């Protein structure tokens, strides 16, 4: 290479590299636009097994769990309130996050809300929400918040008052469980879906989160 060529090289780099980066970014945007629907489908195939992801995480399970939980929040946030939105990946994302870190209480609690909310605010899958909270209770038997959430789901979403009363009654036996659990069990068993009871649950949830 000639001496003249060498002296030009830094200027070429200063001018050329940003231009190339801009071109690459524009091309990536184009690729994203043309493959968005494909990406959604292929993501679905990649996300099914919590145990599989756990093995691939090479021991960094809890960090990967945080990433999956964050993805679940982003996924829900992008769809909540949008008419016709599908929440197909919400359960696999939450299941993987909680398999990777069974003590990630926030994922069980908020995840149950995301799953149980009626459309378009959520996935309208109270059955999966109950499954998620039960999974959390199995992994964290001393956590009375999760028992309270399960009781709420049975009471408010499923209208299964007998099951809700039983859950609150069982929850009241957990060490450090608040006294209102026993009162809730009694009230639900006695009255069923009254406004007074629902106000009490909401007040308690508001105060405890």
């Amino acid at each position, binding site marked *: 290479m000639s001496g003249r060529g060498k002296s030009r090289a830094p200027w070429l780099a200063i001018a050329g590299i940003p231009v190339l980066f801009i071109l690459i970014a524009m091309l990536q945007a184009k690729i994203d636009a043309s493959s968005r629907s494909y990406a959604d489908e292929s993501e679905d195939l990649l996300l099914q097994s919590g145990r599989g992801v756990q093995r691939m995480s*090479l*021991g960094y399970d*809890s960090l990967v769990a*945080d990433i999956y*939980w*964050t993805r679940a929040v982003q996924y829900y946030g992008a769809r909540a309130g949008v008419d016709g939105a599908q929440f197909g990946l919400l359960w696999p994302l939450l299941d993987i996050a909680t398999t990777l870190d069974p003590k990630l209480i926030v994922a069980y609690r*908020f995840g149950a809300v995301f799953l149980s909310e009626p459309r378009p605010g959520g996935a309208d899958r109270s059955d999966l929400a109950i499954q998620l909270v039960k999974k959390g209770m199995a992994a964290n038997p001393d956590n009375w918040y999760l028992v309270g959430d399960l009781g709420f789901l049975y009471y408010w979403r499923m209208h299964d008052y007998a099951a809700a009363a039983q859950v609150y009654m069982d929850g009241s036996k957990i060490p450090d469980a608040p006294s209102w659990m026993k009162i809730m069990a009694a009230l639900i068993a006695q009255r069923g879906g009254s406004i007074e009871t629902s106000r009490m649950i909401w007040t308690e949830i508001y105060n405890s989160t």
Partner: protein
Amino acid sequence: MSATVRPVAINTFREAVRDRVLYNLVLFALLMIGAAILVGGVSVGIVQLVIINLGLSSISVFGLVMAIFIGVGLVYKEIEKRTLYSLLAKPIRRWQFLVGKYAGLLLTLVVNTAFMTLGLAAAFFYVGGHLERADLSILIAIYFILLELAMVTALAMFFSCFSSPMLSTLYTLAIYITGVFANDIHGIGEFTKSPAVLAVTRVIYYLVPNFHNFNAIATAAHADPIPFALIWQNSLYAALYILLLLIASSAVFSRRNLK
């Protein structure tokens, strides 16, 4: 440390610093600052949890990369550059040279980890964390990471005694990954119900270093206590494994023809 081992160790540490190995701290600092600022905006309820998980995982990954990539060149580089010949002409035994090299890299890893721990603490306080007694688990998790790195360094140096850096990296990585999955390998043997498979998986389970023992990141992130028994058991396990590898390295290296 003996008077013959110490200079080798200190020179290995100086060489690592001269090779700008500690520059990775800049990357770590950027990672922690970025995470501290971004995480709060994109997630719900787990800001401090993410900072601890990310910090501890990064300390582990950065340390592993250093331990493997520097460890595999520890002996090989000295032979390639022929600096080993002038060193061995001095009154130093081959095993002392190895122990010095090992101690030097270990010192580098300890200094590196100490700085990263400070970075993690800074990010933790930035996101509103405050230290409690339960957070002692974070320091214990970092100690376990250091034990893991000490074992990986010994492994990498062992392979470095008789193989090229490329192959040594592959061997070390293969054993590291096998060690991470040690419990799964044991589980597979029990699942198959075949006595032969069970015997083979049991041998592998006890032979490879069980790195699963040293993973306390999740426990620390949730501020759960780490039993004292696990601390001394892991310390002893690592010490025995490192001793075994150093003896094996010395045996291989002392028989190696350097002409």
